[in-house]
């Protein structure tokens, strides 16, 4: 039983590490701030979550010690990570960082132009 839990914990931690690696690759590969933000804000959120869950399961199985701070940390990260991603992309947009050249449409730009005309 303990072995099974340890196996699950190991898989979760490896999965989290893999997600981190993938999101790092995404930050390097993707062309502009906004698409990079996609990679950074989503994959790392799930990566941290799965590593923390794995750690929690490991300590519970191995030492019989349930650490509630890990659960709290998951909760905080799930709440704050999307807000951070939103704020970074918003700050980038407000300081006129250009979209990638292949971007097809930009409704926010249109809305701002319409407002300036009024």
């Amino acid at each position, binding site marked *: 039983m303990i072995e099974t839990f340890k196996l699950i914990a190991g898989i979760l931690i490896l999965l989290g590490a893999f997600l981190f690696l993938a999101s790092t690759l995404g930050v390097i590969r993707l062309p502009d701030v906004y698409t990079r933000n996609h990679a950074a804000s989503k*994959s790392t959120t799930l990566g941290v979550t799965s590593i923390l869950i794995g750690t929690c399961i490991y300590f519970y199985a191995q030492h019989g010690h349930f650490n509630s701070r890990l659960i709290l940390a998951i909760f905080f990260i799930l709440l704050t990570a*999307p807000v951070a991603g939103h704020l970074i992309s918003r700050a980038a947009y407000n300081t006129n960082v250009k979209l990638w050249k292949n971007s097809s449409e930009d409704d926010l730009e249109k809305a701002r132009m319409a407002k300036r005309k009024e």
Partner: protein
Amino acid sequence: MSFQILLNLLLAFTWMFLKNEYSGNTFTIGYILGLLILIVFRHFFNERFYLLRVYAVMKLVLLFFRELLLSNIAVLKVILKPRLTITPGIFALETKLTKDWEITTLANLITLTPGTLVVNVSADNKTLYIHAMDLADKQEAIDNIKNTFEKAIMEVSR
């Protein structure tokens, strides 16, 4: 909702005082009996019976985790593809939600949906500007997802 929960707690404590036993078990039994009483008297409250709303919140949380998983798979697919074939862009989404916390929840959910990221919320809280990773074929699918989110949030706040 909070009034009904408080009333239920009060009933549970009353049960503990009636039984003259002050333990978790008695509290639980009192709470369940209080729930039954609240179900019987549900027509006297202005709002719905509160467990329905608790159920809606739980559904929202489950939806959140499902979307988190799906969005990660979608992002991984884009990143690990040998060639970049995406067409990103920003589109506007009208929302029917009015309260601040509802819009915040919707924005957080959208940020964690497959391939979308909220860039700006208009000053009158009516339009969300969303950056999408792949605008070409997903516009309609994304709108569908928004409808499920909006509906789930409305289910909670109704």
